[in-house]
């Protein structure tokens, strides 16, 4: 069946901010969908609040709305654009939930919008556990499909009865209609049940949880399925979880294809998948189905299905070369699979099942170090913040490549620990609990002599995988014992994925020496191709991975190549924003005649779509792996250079090593990168320009740190040198805390000094992104932080143009930026953080690379900074780019028209994903350590409206009426009075703690006194505490600023329970007075109903016109 002719415009809903469980894989899928639909001549209207996405680049849609993905805002877009259809299956659970809400509210019917991809009925069949259960049970008996025995509960009493029905604990608790397994968990006893099911009932939009029998320890599989309107169905990929059932698939190590099933068992899973997708009725698009298989007898339990494209779909697409989202978009508009060509072979159709002649391993990346109080046990509730994927010709090769792709010190297997230190019994005990780092402990247990049976008994990891680990250990043992590193042994080790660094650690040499030996012996990787068909047909798409095999498939070329190094697995502080810049570089350079070569290992991204760059190498971003790719490409043809400044700290950290190996780095040179990061040298640059930095010092011992702090005065900001995302950074107010910090949070040595900076309280923090070509500066944008200095810039909301800075300040900032860029030797992008305190402009730090805010600034000012940067790196000037029209003439991001819209960036925090060992949420306070996972943009003519939109997009929108609870620290009481008074005037009921209430009363604001958790009730006072009120959802907005002086101390704990209860209940909670002021402006805007929607294309036309 060809394309439908009755659809000429489609509304695509994206997935909003990056959160745990829903990351940039939906930018990948959404970008593919938008591209395909536009190619088909369809008018594409897009709603996505996340500015850091490629899909929200204006060229990917006809009308791009960076607006909150809430039914209210999406309805405004529908009313304005009147699309024929809505495609919501590519934007994760967020888009699906929005679509269902719009359907339920009658909006789709009112405007005559058809839901394509999956009908509401199909979505409900897939997601409603009771209906889904009936579907599975209705499949032919001989397929053997079962569901875990379960009961649906709506109250805690029903839960208690349900456990009895299932035959007792443990039971799995799953709330209905939440994303990424949010709120689910395993209850071993009644206390667990109260905790998990209690919050699950609250989290579920339908107040429904499911209790089911435990299938812990079973083998877990996922099948990616695709169906078209003619009922043709194919399995795109099978995925096997290394970690058995009990660990969320997002947190599990996963492998494609499935490796431990016979054809008989695999075909049963396939039959069931086909039966389920047909019965659920996902008639045009993809879905995934998860299975558990009992290793004792093969009993199959269908765990769940997602009637939409998922994180696993992105992984499966990258793993197979079958672009699920792209094909899903095509079948959604009527094509059948046999009418769609396979991009990679070009000659064969998409109506086939990819077959792999390699092994793909995905490993999760966690961020528990950011949440020291959080329980690191892996459960059915996803906690990882990113993932790395690796491809090898064997499991061992792929696994070891994947581990080094994580770029974490200690992620690789390590044999340097002495045998005697390994205690088998305690290791076997430790590996019973699935947690971040368990894999390495399994390896240690094998080294300590644990048998495969013992490992299986402790972990239920399939014996085949256990043997593969044993095989790696055997190779390591050979390496340890061999008198010399023979060519045969070296080759064998490389075939099993050992890195030069690992080999070096085992053999007591540096990685450089191993590399030298290896090259001298001619032991180098070859590059194979991901081709969907195991070489049965010729591949037209150069999507490569390395392997120590015989034959390479890299084609020679004439055109000079530019290699762009990506940013690796997502982590807090380095995520989609950097991928965005990399993709832009590729687009810009392909456009001016270079052959672009992307190197990255993150399966979630747009950069690792084989359609993005001319060539894709799916490889770890380590010096070894990158040098080999460079070598392979140099063999293939001329290489103009390597771009290291767009992928964040990951490629930047490789710059010096690449340069030392003779690789041409384009743009800012490694020496300049060092200059910006090295305190002394950077200080000289500032001195020469007459700029100041907060007083600071670098300490190599605690005593030294104490002296510095005394000299410059408390409070001080302390942190380890060379970090991204503020890791290990704290504000310290006194000597005792300083001592605690040094002993607790960091290692201090002459090689790893600790930086001690004067902390500027009450300063306005300013972030700048700029381009410099050696001659001219282009100020990309000046962002003013809404939170005060001390909150990490990544977690702070900010506004562009700066809302309280005048032209003179911006000019000072421009001059300072230019002086620094020139002094450091920037060619390309630079990001500088300033603090304005008592009218003194302090330089906090300068990063000679693309920053997290490049996409935000680019969207807000309609200027493609990363594209311009890439071309500047290759030698073009800002003047050239202005002449061509890529950069605007006569203005820059610091000189925006007076009526330019205001963009507000708000961070999205993952606090609701993490629990402490006691089962409560981790604290939500903002600090110098970055903890946000994503961001949204609010865009409008005034700050208040833009801020209100940013709040609606981030998580919990601002209320326009109801109760506001206020409890602020003494130092904030003065600043709180006016905004709270304003809220009272706007009709809010004010609740406050006694101290705050007294201050408010003196200023003429009546507040109801609510007791804190630990206060005894006063006579006549209502007995419920503020925490009770929050739990009862009897509060609409919470303002709670920390009383304490430093994170981790008891004084701060005061508001802890208030803030965590707010997280649990989803009530907006503001923790700074600056945030309060902004919120008041936002609420005013909402009350005045000034909040409309407008596409980026419209805004850009307006900015360009003026």
């Amino acid at each position, binding site marked *: 069946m060809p394309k439908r002719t009755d659809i000429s415009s489609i509304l695509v809903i994206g997935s909003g901010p990056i959160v745990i469980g829903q990351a940039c894989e939906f930018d990948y899928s959404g970008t593919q969908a938008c591209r395909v639909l536009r190619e088909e001549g369809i008018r594409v209207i897009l709603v996505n609040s996340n500015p850091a996405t490629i899909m929200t680049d204006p060229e990917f849609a006809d009308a791009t709305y960076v607006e909150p993905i809430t039914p209210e805002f999406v309805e405004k877009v529908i009313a304005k654009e009147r699309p024929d259809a809505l495609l919501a299956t590519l934007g994760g659970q967020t888009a699906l939930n929005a679509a269902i809400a719009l359907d339920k509210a009658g909006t789709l019917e009112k405007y005559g919008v058809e839901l394509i991809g999956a009908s509401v009925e199909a979505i409900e069949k897939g997601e409603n556990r009771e209906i889904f259960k009936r579907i599975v049970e209705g499949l032919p008996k001989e397929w053997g499909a079962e569901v875990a025995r379960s009961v649906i509960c709506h109250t805690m009493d029903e839960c208690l009865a349900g456990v009895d029905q299932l035959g007792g604990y443990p039971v799995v608790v799953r709330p209905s209609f939440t994303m990424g397994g949010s709120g689910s968990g395993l209850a071993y006893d009644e206390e667990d049940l109260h905790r998990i099911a209690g919050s699950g009932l609250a989290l579920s939009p339908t107040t429904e949880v499911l209790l089911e029998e435990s299938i812990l320890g079973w083998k877990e599989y996922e099948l990616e399925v695709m169906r078209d309107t003619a009922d*043709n169905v194919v399995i795109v990929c099978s995925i096997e979880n290394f970690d058995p059932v009990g660990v969320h698939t997002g947190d599990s190590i996963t492998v494609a294809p499935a490796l431990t099933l*016979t*054809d008989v068992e695999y075909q049963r899973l396939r039959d069931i998948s086909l039966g389920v997708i047909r019965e659920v009725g996902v008639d045009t698009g993809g879905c995934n189905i998860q299975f558990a298989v009992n290793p004792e007898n093969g009993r199959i339990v269908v765990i769940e299905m997602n009637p939409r494209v998922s994180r696993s779909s992105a992984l499966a697409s990258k793993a197979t070369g079958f672009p699920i989202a792209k094909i899903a978009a095509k079948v959604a508009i009527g094509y059948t699979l046999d009418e769609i060509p396979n991009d990679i072979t070009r000659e064969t159709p998409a109506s086939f099942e990819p*077959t792999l002649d390699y092994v793909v391993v995905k490993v999760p990346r966690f961020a528990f170090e950011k949440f020291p109080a959080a329980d690191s046990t892996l459960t059915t509730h996803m906690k990882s913040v990113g993932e790395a994927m690796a491809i090898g010709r*064997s499991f061992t090769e792929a696994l070891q490549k994947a581990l080094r792709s994580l770029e974490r010190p200690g992620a690789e297997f390590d044999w340097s620990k002495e045998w005697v230190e390994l205690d088998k019994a305690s290791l076997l005990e430790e590996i019973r609990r699935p947690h971040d780092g368990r894999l390495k402990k399994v390896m240690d247990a094998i080294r300590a002599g644990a048998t495969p049976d013992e490992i299986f008994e402790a972990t239920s990891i399939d014996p085949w995988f256990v043997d593969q680990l044993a095989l790696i250990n055997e190779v390591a043992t050979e390496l340890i014992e061999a008198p010399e590193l023979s060519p045969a042994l070296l080759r064998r080790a490389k075939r099993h994925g050992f890195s030069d660094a690992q080999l070096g650690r085992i053999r007591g040499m540096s990685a450089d020496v191993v590399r030298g030996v290896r090259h001298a012996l001619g032991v180098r990787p070859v590059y194979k191709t991901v081709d969907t068909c195991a070489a*049965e047909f010729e591949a037209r798409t150069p999507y490569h991975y390395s392997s120590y095999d015989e034959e390479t498939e890299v084609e020679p070329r004439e055109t000079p190549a530019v290699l762009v190094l990506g940013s690796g697995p997502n982590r807090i502080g380095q995520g989609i924003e950097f991928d965005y810049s990399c993709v832009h570089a590729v687009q810009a350079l392909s456009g001016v005649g270079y052959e672009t070569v992307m190197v990255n290992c993150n399966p979630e991204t747009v950069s690792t779509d084989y359609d993005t760059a001319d060539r894709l190498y799916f490889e770890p971003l380590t010096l070894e792996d990158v040098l080999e790719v460079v070598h392979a490409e140099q063999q293939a043809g001329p290489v103009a250079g390597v771009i290291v400044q767009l992928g964040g700290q990951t490629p930047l950290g490789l710059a010096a090593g690449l340069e030392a190996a003779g690789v041409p780095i384009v743009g800012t040179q490694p020496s300049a990168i060092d200059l910006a990061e090295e305190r002394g040298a950077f200080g000289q640059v500032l001195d020469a320009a007459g700029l100041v930095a907060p007083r600071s010092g670098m300490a190599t011992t605690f005593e030294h740190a104490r002296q510095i702090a005394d000299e410059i005065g408390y409070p001080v900001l302390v942190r380890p040198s060379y970090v991204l995302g503020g890791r290990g950074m704290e504000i310290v107010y006194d000597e005792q805390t300083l001592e605690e910090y040094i002993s607790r949070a960091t290692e201090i040595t002459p090689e790893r000094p600790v930086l001690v900076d004067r902390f500027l309280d009450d300063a306005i923090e300013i972030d700048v992104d700029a381009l410099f070509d050696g001659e001219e500066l282009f100020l990309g944008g000046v962002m003013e932080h809404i939170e005060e200095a001390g909150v990490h810039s990544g977690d702070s909301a900010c506004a562009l143009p700066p809302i309280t800075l005048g032209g003179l300040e911006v000019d000072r900032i421009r001059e300072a930026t230019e002086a620094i860029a020139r002094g450091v030797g920037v060619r390309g992008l630079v990001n500088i953080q300033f603090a304005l305190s008592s009218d003194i402009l302090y330089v906090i730090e300068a990063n000679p690379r693309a920053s997290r805010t490049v996409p935000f600034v680019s969207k807000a000012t309609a200027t493609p900074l990363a594209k311009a940067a890439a071309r500047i790196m290759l030698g073009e000037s800002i003047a050239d780019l202005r002449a061509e029209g890529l950069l605007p003439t006569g203005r820059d991001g610091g000189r925006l028209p007076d009526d330019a819209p205001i963009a507000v960036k708000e961070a999205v925090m993952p606090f609701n994903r993490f629990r402490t060992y006691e089962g409560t949420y981790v604290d939500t306070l903002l600090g110098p350590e970055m903890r946000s996972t994503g961001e949204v943009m609010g865009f409008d003519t005034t700050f208040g409206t833009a801020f209100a939109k940013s709040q609606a997009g981030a998580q919990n929108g601002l209320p326009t009426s109801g109760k506001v609870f206020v409890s602020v620290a003494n130092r904030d009481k003065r600043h709180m009075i006016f905004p709270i008074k304003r809220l009272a005037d706007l009709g809010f009921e004010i609740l406050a703690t006694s101290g705050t209430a007294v201050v408010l009363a003196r200023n003429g604001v009546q507040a109801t006194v609510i007791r804190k958790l630990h206060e005894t009730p006063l006579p006549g006072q209502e007995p419920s505490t503020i925490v009770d009120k929050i739990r009862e959802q009897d509060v609409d907005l919470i303002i709670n600023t920390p009383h304490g002086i430093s994170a981790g101390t008891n004084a701060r704990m005061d508001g802890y329970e208030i803030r965590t209860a707010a997280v649990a209940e989803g009530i907006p909670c503001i923790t700074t007075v600056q945030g309060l002021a902004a919120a008041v402006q936002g609420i005013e805007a909402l009350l005045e109903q000034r909040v409309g929607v407008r596409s980026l294309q419209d805004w850009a036309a307006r900015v360009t016109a003026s």
Partner: protein
Amino acid sequence: MTQTHEAGSSRRPAPGTPAVLVLEDGRTFRGESFGAQGTTIAEIVFATGMTGYQETLTDPSYRGQIVVMTAPHIGNTGVNDEDFESRRVWVDGYVVRDPSRVRSSWRSNRSLDDLLTEQGVVGISAVDTRALTRHLRERGSMRAAISSEPQHVEGSLDALVALVNEAPSMEGSSFLDDVTTPEPYVVPAVGERRFTVAAVDLGIKGMTPRRLAERGIEVHVLPASSTIDDVLAVGADGKGPDGVFMSNGPGDPATADHVVGVLREVLERRIPYFGICLGNQMLGRALGRGTYKLKYGHRGINQPVQDRTTGKVEITSQNHGFAVDAPLDGTFETPYGDAHVTHVGLNDQVVEGVALVDGPAFSVQYHPEAAAGPHDAAYLFDRFVQLMTDHAPDHAKVTD
């Protein structure tokens, strides 16, 4: 726990015994011996299925072929007693990249290595199977040798290449006598017997009679050398079978003149006919069409085929090196009335099924019985049942 580990004893020493693989065009690969040691010479082909090695190895159609598995890890689930497609392993050589050291499956009772060794199948591992596959894709299937014997492994491989070039080629080869059953046997119908079918064993897989029997068919499996009289002798009361089936099998279909002759007799009598694989080529030939050798064949379980009568695409299991030469569009004349191509391979537009337009005969080139592979095409067995129902003499008509 039912998993089995073979700690110690069966672990192969590393590196293993050297082995070589040489192709008739002189390309060589060095690897390690896997399975039995020795030397084998045969046509080399690649198979792309990621699961189902046990079924593949025991599929008689692979007689006379060295099989290269494109999936790198082979042997992970060991070998069990249920998944044999015939009484033995048929491949003449086996090429894999990474054989498994252990087996992980609750159904497994021995390792693949043991099975191959016991059955004398010479194999090689640790070769770049992708490079080999690409070579075969570009140059076509050809003759090859695997050897782990010192006189071939050590020193020049020229002598082995010469030996390969002296071996007979697949074109013109027949292996039917090797693979067919020496004696007829009966697979009883599951439940009530509705039909009796004579199934000519050209290398039949165990799953095929099972799929027929599940549908109430009593299957009389006959040797390939059976005559039309043998076929007609099947069935109650000497009235002949309700239908005739011809199976898959190895070798060049152009050599199977006897079988084609028997099939023509069947068609003359308008007895319902269903053929699979070689059975499709037999129908093609009986209808007057030729067969030809594909460059590198179709061997995999992911092959898209379109049923031209419904437009639907099925994902099929395939294993064929030859194909029927017939016009894709329209009909063609045959002595038994007009015939047409009913199924087409979407990857390369190869004929995957033919049928008489108005007569009771159809066949497909691929494997609806799967094993290994997807079950999408299982409906063809129902179509056979329907055909027998529609063309049944009165006495055989189903009464329910």
